[in-house]
Every structure is written in C-alpha cells, then in structure tokens.
C-alpha cells in the first residue's frame, strides 16, 4: 500500500514536470503597449477677402427706353475652415441688414478653387438675398479653402433693378453678413 502511494506521487510529479517543460519550450512572445491620443475639435471659421467695402453703382442708359446698366467689379473671395463630426455638414448663408426699395441684391458663389481640400460647399447659384439668411453654399463637410484671394469660393455681388416704380436716386449702404453654420 505504501509503495503504491509513492509510485502515484512519483507519476504526479512527472506529469507536472512534463507540463512545465511543455510551457517552457513554447517560444515566448511578449507584448506591451502605450497609448496615443488626439482630440480634433469642431472648427467653424469664415472670412472674406479682400477686406473693405465695394461700391456698386448703376449706370444710366445712354439710349432712352433702355434699362439701367448693372455695375461690375464686384467680387470677393470666401474662405472657410470647417471641421465637423462624422455625418454632419454645414451651409454658408448671406443676409442683408436692410433692403433697398426697387433693388435686388444678389450673391453668386462660384465653385471652390485654389488651394484647399476636403468636402467643400456646393453653390446654390445666383441668390437674391434679403434680411433673412439665404443659403449660398451647402454640403460643407470637413474642409479648408486656403487663405486670402484666389482661394475658396469667388463671390459675385450684383445689383439688379427690381420694381422700377420703387426706384429713386439715392445712395445706400448695406451690410452683407455671411455665416457658416450647422444644418
């Protein structure tokens, strides 16, 4: 009985030894890590270049019966930087601080050009703006247009006679406010 117990213990020890050997001969492979974190915030920046106001002046027709001649030399450049969360987009709206009776004030954004990248806006075409915000660009995702003139969207601001009955010779100053906003 005593020798059987010793034999069992010996066998047990042998198995433990063999299991240990098995693990020892398995090629060890170690891994450890460190983390890298970066937080990218939402960004909404918009600018107009060049700075300063533009003067728009109707020219009188030289032939009786003809309409007023619309002004030219009326462009600006719209720059923006937009960082959005996944699946969201932004618009650019334009609005006036006041309207001029008998005159339609219009803004047209061209397609983005120059440097820049990402999902830049799609023009709404020629838009007559008023004192409520009107969308001139839509579908802006994560994007940047590049800075200063010849980058971004060229804006053409134009005047058109509305109702001639409301026109009068006068000088007006209006402010156009552009806003980059979430939908």
């Amino acid at each position: 009985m005593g020798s059987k117990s010793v034999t069992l213990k010996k066998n047990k020890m042998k198995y433990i030894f063999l299991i240990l050997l098995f693990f020892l001969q398995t090629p060890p492979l170690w891994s450890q890590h460190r983390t890298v974190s970066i937080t990218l915030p939402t960004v909404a920046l918009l600018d107009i270049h060049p700075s300063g106001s533009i003067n728009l002046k109707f020219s009188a027709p030289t032939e009786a019966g003809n309409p007023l001649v619309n002004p030219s030399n009326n462009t600006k450049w719209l720059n923006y930087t937009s960082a959005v969360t996944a699946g969201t987009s932004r618009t650019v709206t334009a609005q006036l601080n006041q309207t001029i009776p008998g005159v339609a004030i219009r803004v047209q954004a061209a397609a983005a050009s120059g440097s820049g990248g990402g999902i830049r806006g799609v023009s709404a075409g020629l838009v007559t703006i008023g004192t409520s915000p009107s969308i001139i660009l839509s579908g802006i995702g994560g994007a940047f247009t590049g800075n200063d003139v010849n980058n971004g969207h060229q804006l053409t601001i134009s005047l058109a006679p509305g109702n001639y009955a409301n026109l009068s010779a006068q000088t007006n100053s209006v402010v156009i406010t552009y806003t980059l906003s979430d939908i």
Partner: protein
Amino acid sequence: MLFILFSGITALDAQTVTVGGSNWIANAAPVTEAGNNYSGTLEASTNQILLSTSVSGWFNAAAVSVQYQADPIWHDDLVISVKRTGNGTHTCLLCYLSGGDNYVIVPKVASTQFYIINTNLFPANHNNTPVQIQVSGISVTVPAAAYKARVIFTISSI
C-alpha cells in the same frame, strides 16, 4: 532525455519586451485663420516610449514588431509612425540593435518589424531604448472626435 535537453535549450530562447515611458497626448495647435488647415504632423518627445528588451544568447536574434489598435476609435487618415532614437543601455557583449532608426509606419491589421536585436553567445539585455512617436495626416477633413490608439510592441525570435 533528448526531450529534456531540447526543452532546456529552447527555454533559453526566452525574450521579453517591457514598454516604459508614458502615454502620449498629441495636441494640435488650433486653426485660427479661416481657410487654413492643421499643420498636419505632430511628434512626441524623442524618448516618449522606452523599450527594455531581453533576449537569450546562443546567437539568437529577436525582432521587435509594432502595430496599433483603436481604443476605442481611431481614424485611418491619422498615420502613426515610430522610430528608434537611440540604443539605450545594454549589458551584453557585442550585441547590437539594427533598423528602426527612421520612421516606420505602424499598421493596424498586422504588426510590422520595427527593429532587430542581434545577440551572440550571451544574453542581450537592452534597457530604455528610446522611441519617438509621430502622428501625421492631422486635418480638418478628419471628422472631429477624440481618438485614441494602443501602440503595441511585440518581441519574437527570428
């Protein structure tokens, strides 16, 4: 008996890597001018991570490999790279490190070889091998979010 001898020899193949240093929080300078983008690339300090490795002798060589895992989210446009900026200290005779001294892009799917530890008859223990991390592709075109990844270093015999 042969099994025991074989086991004894292969047991000497043991290699370990310990990752020291600290986690890195990359801070992108904010964009302040409309139309501009982030500068695009950020680098951690040259000793942001300190790797300590141990490889048995017997002319074994071991490779330190690296990969990343999102924790929990990362964006594929954000490219993580690592490079070895020194050797650290070692206690071995005629052992040396090779490779990894230029930036290596860290892949997500499978680990890529970073550098090799070459040994001779004696064990090679390298301590505090400095590693610099770089993240490139930082842009406003990457969706705004908090990103975090684990950079995993693995050592294996080659």
